[in-house]
C-alpha cells in the first residue's frame, strides 16, 4: 500500500487510528504489528512470510548474541554473522540474484545460465533488512539491550510509516519508544501537519512534475532538443526530491501521530554548496547507516589517506548497488564516490573560496547529472539525453511546442524551486512572530492542501473512456 492512495487514507488510516486510540493501551504494539503486516501484504501477501522469517531469525539470534556477548566474544560474533547472513540472503536472492546471473551468462562457458522468472522484489526489503541489521550489530557492540518481547521487535521492523521507503530507523534510536511513548495534542497535530506537507510534496509536486519529465522524455524520442533534454533532467531532479522527502515527511508525520519520534532524513539537499554537503543533507538515515556500519568499521579516516579513499570507494559502490541491481546504479555510486574523493583532495578548498553562488551552481549541476544516471536504467538512452543537453548530435535548441510546454509548466517549476529552499518556512515563522493571528492559517493550510491532494488522487484515476469517437 502507498500513502498517497485513497484506500490508505480513507480506510486503512481511519481504521488504524480508531483501533490504536480506542483499544486498551497494552494492545497498542499488537495493533501496530497487525495493521503493519496488512499494510505490507496488501500487494504481495506472500512476502509477509519472507519478512517474518527475517524478523524471527534476528529476534532469536538476538538472545544468543546477548548471552555470549560478555562471556564468549567469538561465539557472539559468530551468531552476529549468522544473523546478518540470514537477513542478507533474502536481499541478495530477491534483489541481486538475477543481476548476477544475467552478467555471468555473458561469459561464454556460462551462457546456459538463465535468470529466474517472475522474481518480484519484495517491497521495502532494502529498508527493513538494514533496520534489522542495525539491531543485530548494535546488540553485538553492546550499544543496545536485547529485545525479549517479540511483538515489540516485530513492531519495530514492520512499523508501517517507515516500512516501505524509510527513513531507516536504527533500533537503538527508538528502543525505549517501543515500550513507552508519549502521546499529546501537540505531537498529534504536528504529525498531521508533517503528514499533509509530505502528501502535498508527493501528490501535488512530485507526481505532476514527473508527468512533465515523462512528456519531455517521450518528446525526446521523436524530436530531441537541447531545451527539452534540460527539462527532462530538471524535472527528474525535482521529482525525486519531492517524492522521496515527501515520503519521509509522511513517515515522520504518521510516526508522530502514533507517538514515535523518527530522526530527520532530509535537510534541504538542494541548498548544498558541494557534493560532500549534499550527502550530509540527502537521505541522511542511509548515509548514517553506511557510515556507522561500514565506513567506520573499515577504519574510516583514521588509517591514512589511502585507506580512507579505499573506504570511500567501498561505501559508494555499496550505496550505488543498494539503490538497485543495475549497472547504472553502480555507475551512479562510482560517480559520487569519485566526486567526493576529488572534493576531499582539493575541490572543497576551492569551493570554500569562490562566491557561494558558483559553488551552489557546481553542486546542483553535478547532482542533476547524477539523477540523469540514476533514472536511465537504459544507459544508452541516458547518454543520448546527456549529449543532447550539451548540444551534441545536431539537435535543435528548441521548438515552438517545447517553448509552449516549458511556459505552461513554468509556475510549477518555480514552486518546486521555492519548495526546495527553507525560505517558505522562514517566512511563515517570521510572519507568525509579527502577527500572531497568522497562526490560525496553519489548520486551514494543512487541511486545504490535504483536500487538494485528495482531488488530485481522485482525478488520477479519472479516465473517461473516450476512444469511442470513431
Amino acid at each position, binding site marked *: *500500500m502507498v500513502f498517497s*492512495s*485513497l*484506500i490508505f487514507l*480513507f*480506510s486503512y488510516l*481511519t481504521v488504524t*487510528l480508531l483501533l490504536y486510540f480506542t483499544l486498551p493501551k497494552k494492545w497498542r504494539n499488537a495493533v501496530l504489528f497487525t495493521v503493519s503486516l496488512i499494510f505490507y501484504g*496488501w*500487494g504481495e*501477501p506472500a512476502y509477509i512470510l519472507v519478512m517474518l522469517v527475517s524478523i524471527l531469525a534476528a529476534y532469536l539470534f538476538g538472545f544468543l548474541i546477548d548471552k555470549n556477548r560478555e562471556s564468549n566474544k567469538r561465539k557472539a560474533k559468530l551468531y552476529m554473522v549468522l544473523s546478518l547472513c540470514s537477513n542478507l540472503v533474502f536481499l541478495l536472492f530477491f534483489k541481486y540474484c538475477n543481476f548476477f546471473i544475467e552478467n555471468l551468462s555473458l561469459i561464454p562457458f556460462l551462457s546456459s545460465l538463465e535468470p529466474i522468472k517472475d522474481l518480484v522484489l519484495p517491497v521495502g526489503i532494502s529498508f527493513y533488512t538494514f533496520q534489522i541489521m542495525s539491531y543485530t550489530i548494535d546488540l553485538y557492540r553492546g550499544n543496545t539491550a536485547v529485545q525479549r518481547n517479540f511483538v515489540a521487535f516485530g513492531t519495530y521492523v514492520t512499523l508501517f510509516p517507515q516500512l516501505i521507503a524509510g527513513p531507516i530507523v536504527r533500533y537503538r534510536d527508538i528502543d525505549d519508544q517501543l515500550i513507552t511513548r508519549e502521546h499529546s*495534542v*501537540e505531537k*498529534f*497535530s504536528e504529525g*498531521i*501537519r508533517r503528514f*499533509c506537507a509530505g502528501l502535498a510534496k508527493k501528490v501535488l509536486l512530485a507526481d505532476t512534475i514527473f508527468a512533465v519529465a*515523462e*512528456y519531455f522524455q*517521450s*518528446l525526446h*524520442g*521523436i*524530436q530531441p532538443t537541447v531545451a527539452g533534454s534540460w527539462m527532462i533532467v530538471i524535472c527528474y531532479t525535482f521529482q525525486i526530491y519531492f517524492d522521496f522527502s515527501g515520503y519521509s515527511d509522511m513517515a515522520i508525520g504518521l510516526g508522530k501521530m502514533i507517538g514515535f519520534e523518527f530522526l530527520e532524513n532530509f535537510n534541504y539537499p538542494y541548498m548544498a554548496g558541494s557534493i560532500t554537503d549534499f550527502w550530509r543533507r540527502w537521505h541522511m538515515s542511509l548515509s548514517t547507516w553506511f557510515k556507522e556500519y561500514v565506513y567506520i568499521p573499515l577504519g574510516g579516516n583514521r588509517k591514512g589517506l589511502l585507506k580512507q579513499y579505499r573506504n570511500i570507494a567501498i561505501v559508494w559502490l555499496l550505496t550505488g548497488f543498494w539503490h538497485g541491481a543495475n549497472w547504472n546504479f553502480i555507475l551512479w555510486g562510482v560517480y559520487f564516490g569519485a566526486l567526493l574523493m576529488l572534493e576531499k583532495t582539493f575541490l572543497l578548498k576551492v569551493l570554500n573560496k569562490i562566491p557561494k553562488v558558483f559553488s551552489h551552481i557546481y553542486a546542483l549541476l553535478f547532482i542533476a547529472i547524477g539523477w540523469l544516471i540514476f533514472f536511465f536504467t537504459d544507459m544508452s538512452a541516458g547518454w543520448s539525453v546527456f549529449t543532447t543537453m550539451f548540444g551534441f548530435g545536431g539537435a535543435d535548441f528548441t*521548438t*515552438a*511546442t517545447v*517553448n509552449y510546454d516549458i511556459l*505552461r*509548466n*513554468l*509556475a*510549477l517549476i518555480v*514552486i518546486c524551486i521555492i519548495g526546495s529552499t527553507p525560505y517558505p518556512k522562514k517566512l511563515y515563522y517570521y510572519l507568525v512572530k509579527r502577527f500572531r493571528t497568522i*497562526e*490560525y492559517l*496553519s*489548520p486551514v493550510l*494543512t*487541511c486545504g492542501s*490535504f*483536500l*487538494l491532494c*485528495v*482531488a*488530485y*488522487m*481522485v*482525478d*488520477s*484515476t*479519472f*479516465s*473517461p*473512456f*473516450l476512444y*469511442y*469517437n*470513431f
Partner: protein
Amino acid sequence: MKKITNIITIVLFLAILFGLSVAFVAMPDKSYSENEKRNLQTFPEFSLEALMDGKFSSEINEYFADQFPLRDAFVSIKALAELSLFKGENNGVLLGENETLAVRTFSIFKDRLNRTDNMDHFYNQSVVRQLEALNKFAAEKASVPVHVIIPPRVIDVASESFNYPSNVSVSLDAIVSTTLSKDLLIPVSPVLKEKYSAGEYVYYRTDHHWTTLGAYYAYVEIMKSFGMEEDIIPRDKFTVNVVADDFYGTTWSKCGFSFVSPDTMEFWSLGNDDKFTTTIGERSFSGFYDMSYLETMDKYSAFISGTNDITLVESNYDEERPVLLLPKDSFANSLVPFLAQHFDLVLVNMANRMTNISAYAEQYSADRILFVWNAENLITSGNLGNVN
C-alpha cells in the same frame, strides 16, 4: 494560543478523514458514469487467488477512486488548481477563448506499442504510409471514383482561439496535401478555418466533432469535388431545429472544467426526412436520427444512431439513385442528412478494422467511394494503411 490552533488542526483533519471514510461506506455504489461514459468499478469479488496475485488490491484501488464521494467536485477542483498555475490545460485538454476546448492528440511511436498521451506530435512515416495506401487503393483496386476527406481537429480549425503553437497543424496539412493524390483529396480545412475566423459555429466547443453547420460546409466541398456543383442545396432551403442546448461533448468529459457552458446541437431538415430509412443490421428507422440519444450525454450519436459496423441510408421510393460508399469514422454521421439527398449511402465503420473496401464496393455496387477519416484518427491509428 498554540494549543487552540493545534486542536483546530486535529478536529478539522479528523473530520475530513472520518467524514469522507464514512460517506464512502454509506453511499450506494454506482455502476455507470454517464459523464465519463464508462462502467465504474464496483466492489471486487474476493477470492484467495485474487488476493494473492494482487488483482483484488488493484481492483479495490480503482473501486475507491471510482466510487469516491463528491467525485465530480474533486475532479473540478483539480482542474481549477491546474488552471490557477497558468497551465492552460488539464488532462491533455486545452482551454481556449470562448470556453473552447481542444484535445492534444496522443501519438504513436515507431514501435507502435509505445503510446504517449497528449503529445500532439505525429509520426511522419505512419501518416505517409496510410496516405500512400489510399493512393494505391484508388489507382489499383477501385473501379469507381475515390475521394478522401480528412476533417481537421479542433486545434487545427480553431488555432486562433488557443495560445498554442500551430506548427504541428501546418506540417500535418502539408504532408496530407503533398502525399495524397490531388484528385483524391477534398480540401476542407481552409473553408472551415475561414468560417471559424469569421465567427461561425463550425465546430463544437466541448466536443471533437464538427457542428451541423460545419458538416454543411464540408458537404458543399464534397459536392464540388464530385462535379455536382449545380445540385448543391442552398443553405436557406433548410429548416434549422435546435434539438439540444445542453450538449457536453467528449472533450468536456475529459477535462474537468465543469464551468464551461454547453454546446447546442442542430438538425437541419428539408422537411422530407421521412422519405428516408436508416438500416443497421436487422434494425431500421425512418429518417436519420435516433432521438433516444438526445436524452443521454452522448447526443452526437443521435445522428444515424451512432457508430455501427454497416449502416444503410436509402430513399423509400424506388428511384434509381447512385450509391455512395463511405468508409468512415463518426465525422461522417452528421454528413448523412445532406449526402442522402443525392445518394443511397453505405457507411462502413473503418474504426472496427473493416478495411476490405473493394469487397464492400462490389457487394453494394457502389458508384463512388468517399473516405471520411479525421486527422486525429489519421495520427493515432494505422487503420487506413490496411485499406484494400
